[in-house]
C-alpha cells in the first residue's frame, strides 16, 4: 500500500520534474524577442524631439505613455499619431490636447544671418544637431536635418531664429480633389 503511494509520488514527481525542465529549457531556447511597447510607441511618434508634450524627447514621451500618460500630447504628430497610438494600445482616440498648437504643418527653423551674434545657445538646444556654427561665428540650419521642433527659437537672445513653413513643391504637393475636375467621356 505504502509502496504504491511512494511509487505514485515518485512517478508523478519525476514526470513533473522532467516537464518542468523541458519547459524551462524551451523558455530559454525558443525565447521570442517581442518588441517592447515603448519601442513600438516610439516608432509611431514623429521624432521631432520637440518636447511640446512636456517630455525631453520622443522616447521619454513613449515611456510616459506606456506608464499611463495621455496619448494626445504630440502636437507635430497630430491626429494621425493619436489614432495610431490609440489603435496600438486599444484605447479611445482623443482630440489633441488644447494647450498645444493645432498647426502641424511641417516647418523648418531659419536663422536670420545678419542678426546672429554667434552665441551657440541654439546649437546647445537643438536635439538633433542640425545647427552648424561656432562661438562668435554665424550659425546656420542644416535644413535636411531640422525637424522643425522650434526648441532653438526660445534660447536665442536676439530673436534671429524663425520657423518657416516648408513651401509646396511638385515633390511634396498633395492632390486636392476639389481642384481637379472629374473627367468623363460622352
Amino acid at each position, binding site marked *: 500500500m505504502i509502496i504504491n503511494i511512494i511509487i505514485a509520488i515518485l512517478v508523478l514527481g519525476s514526470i513533473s520534474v522532467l516537464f518542468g525542465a523541458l519547459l524551462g529549457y524551451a523558455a530559454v531556447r525558443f525565447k521570442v524577442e517581442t518588441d517592447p511597447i515603448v519601442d513600438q510607441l516610439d516608432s509611431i511618434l514623429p521624432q521631432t524631439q520637440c518636447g511640446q508634450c512636456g517630455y525631453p524627447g520622443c522616447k521619454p514621451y513613449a515611456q510616459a505613455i506606456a506608464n499611463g500618460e495621455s496619448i494626445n500630447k504630440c502636437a507635430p504628430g497630430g491626429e494621425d499619431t493619436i489614432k495610431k497610438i490609440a489603435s496600438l494600445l486599444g484605447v479611445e482616440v482623443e482630440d489633441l490636447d488644447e494647450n498645444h498648437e493645432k498647426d502641424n504643418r511641417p516647418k523648418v527653423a531659419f536663422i536670420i544671418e545678419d542678426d546672429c*551674434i554667434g552665441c551657440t545657445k541654439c546649437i546647445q538646444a537643438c536635439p538633433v544637431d542640425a545647427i552648424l556654427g561656432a562661438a562668435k561665428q554665424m550659425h546656420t540650419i542644416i535644413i535636411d536635418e531640422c525637424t522643425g521642433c522650434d526648441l532653438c527659437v526660445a534660447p536665442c537672445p536676439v*530673436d534671429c531664429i524663425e520657423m518657416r513653413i516648408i513651401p509646396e513643391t*511638385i515633390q511634396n504637393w498633395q492632390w486636392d480633389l476639389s481642384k481637379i475636375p472629374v*473627367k468623363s*467621356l*460622352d
Partner: protein
Amino acid sequence: MMKSIIERISQGKFWQFHGGIHPPEQKKLTSEKPIRNIALPKQLILPLQQHIGSQGELLVTVGDKILKGQPLTKSLNPMSVPVHAPTSGIISAIKKSVIAHPSGLSELCIFIDVDGNDSWIKREICNDFKTLDKETIINKIASAGIAGMGGAGFPTHIKLSAKPEINFLIINAAECEPYITADDLLIREQSEAIIDGIKILDHLLTPAFILIGIEDNKPEAIKALQEATRNIEKIKVCILPTKYPTGGEKQLIKVLTGKEIKSGSLPINSGIIVQNIATCFAITDAVIHDIPLIRRVVTVSGKSLGKPQNIWALLGTPISYLLKQCDHTHENNNKLVVVMGGPLMGFSISNAQVPIIKTSNCILAPSAIEMPSAFSGKSNEVECIRCGQCSDVCPSQLMPQELQWSAKAKDYDQLNKLNLFDCIDCGACAYVCPSQIPLVEYYRIAKAEIRQQQLFDVKSEKAKTRFEARKIRLEKDKTARIEKHKKAAEARKAAMNNSTPEANGAKSAVAAALARVKAKKAASNNQKKSISNKEQHESNDQNHESSLKSNDNRKAKISATIAKVKAKKAQEASISKEVELNDSVTSTLKITDDKKVRIAATIAKAKAKEKEIDNKEEKVTFKSSSKNNQQKEST
C-alpha cells in the same frame, strides 16, 4: 518557350489581359490629316525638368545668345537628362513658371526669345551607326536628352545600359487612349526613320526578337510598318485587337508574350524591354542626324477646336499658341478647359502658358458636350453601389471598390495590402463606374500621401538616430568633464599640501589673481549700474534707439542687439513672474528649460527682496537682469 510564343504570334494569336474597356475612340478628328508644321512661336518656355528623375545644372545665363540644338543644362547624375534649345534666340529670363503638372505649381524654366533664324549649332552627321561602339551610341542618346515619350518620361539611356540578356524588345505603338493619334501619324510619315531607330536598339540590346505592338484601328500605320520591315526577319509587326489600355507596359507584355510581370518587378528582369515608338524616332534623330530631343508630335484635338490636327511642336511651345493655331474657341465664359494627355489619363491644366514638354503627347480642348463635368466643375459622385464593374475592367486585377474605401478612410496599410501601387492610373474603373466616382483621383491622392509618409518615415528615423547619438555624446562629455575636474582638483590639492616653494608661489599667484578679479568686478559693476539706470529711463521710449544711434554704424548695431537682448530678458522675466504668482512655475519649467528656472529663481529672490523693501520692484528686476547680462558676458 520563346519559340512557341513566336509561333503563336505568327499565327496572329495573342494573349489577353484582364479587363479593359472600349471607350469611343474619337481618333478620326485628327487621324485623316498630316502632321502640320507651324511657324515658330515668339517665346519658348523650357522647364528644367521634363522627365522622371532630377533636373540638370544650368549651363546658360540670362542674355546668352543660343543656337538651335545647344544644350542648356548638363546632367549631374545618371537619372537626369539635359534640355536643349529648340531654336535659336536669346535667353530672356530664367525664373519660376507654371509647368505641365496637375498641381499648377511653378518650377524653374528657361525663357527663350526666338530670333526666327532657326540657325543650328554645328552637327556631326553619322551615316552608319554600326561604326560606332555601343557606349558612344548610349552617350549620344543620353546627351540628346531622350526620355521615354510615351508618358512616364523615364530616361531612355538607363533602360539601354542594362546588361542582362534580352529576349524581347517590344516597341509600343498601341496608342490605345482615345483622341490621341500622334504615334499613328508619325509611323505613317516616318516609318523608315522609326525602323532605323529600332535597328539602333537592336544593335545595342541584341534581343532575340523584336515585336512591334500596334492596335488594329490604325490600318495605314500597320501597312507602313509592314512595308518598312518586309526584309527584316527579326522584327514582327503584331496587330492587336483594340482595347484600352493595351498600351500599358505590363498589359502590352501580357498580350504579346503571355508573361505577367510581378508586382514591384521591372520587365527587364524577365528579359523584356519596352520602348515607345516615338522614342525610336528620337533615337534615330539623335544618333544619325545629331538632333537632340527638341520637338515632338502633339495631337491637338477636341471639339472646341476649329482645326484639330497633329502638330510638330517645339518643346517649350506654350499651349495657348498651339490652341490658337487650331482655332480654339472659348465657349464657356472664357474659362479654360484644357486637358494635357488623353481624356482618361490626362490632367486638367489651369494656365494656357503651360509649355509642351518631352512627355506631352496630346492637348485636349473638349467641348461642353464631350466633357460636361470639366465645365460644370463639380462632381456628380454618388455612393458606391458595389456593382463590381470596376473590378471587371481593372487591367491590373485590383479591387477598385475596396481601394476606394480604404483611400477615403486613409487606411494606408490596407491600401498597400490591396497593392495600390500596381494601379497604373488608367482610369478604366472610373470610366465604367455607374456612381461616377472619380476613383483614379482618390488613388492618386492616396499614392501621393503614402509617398509623403514614406519620406517622413525616413526623416524621422534619421532624426531619431541623430537624437540618440547626441544623447550619447552629451553623456560622454559630461563624464569626461567630471573626470577632468576631479583630476584637476586632486592635482591642486596635492600641490597645495606640498609646501614646496613652487606651491607657495602658485598660492600667492592665485591670491593675486583673485584680488585682480575682485577689483575688476567692482569696477564693472559700477559701470553696469549706470548703464542699467539709463536703460530704465528710456526703456519705454520707442525713439530711444534712434537717439542712441551714433554715426558709428557698428556701435549702433551692437547697441540695438543689446537692446533686443534686454527687451527679451525683460519679457521673459515678466512671464516667469506671472507664473511664479500662480505657484506652478517650477513643475512645468523645470522639465523644458532649466535656464528659465534659473531666471525664475532670480526673480523669486528679487520678489523676496521686494516684500522687504516696498516700492522698489523695478530696480530689483533690473538688477537681476543686469546680473544676467554679466553672466552672459562672462560666458
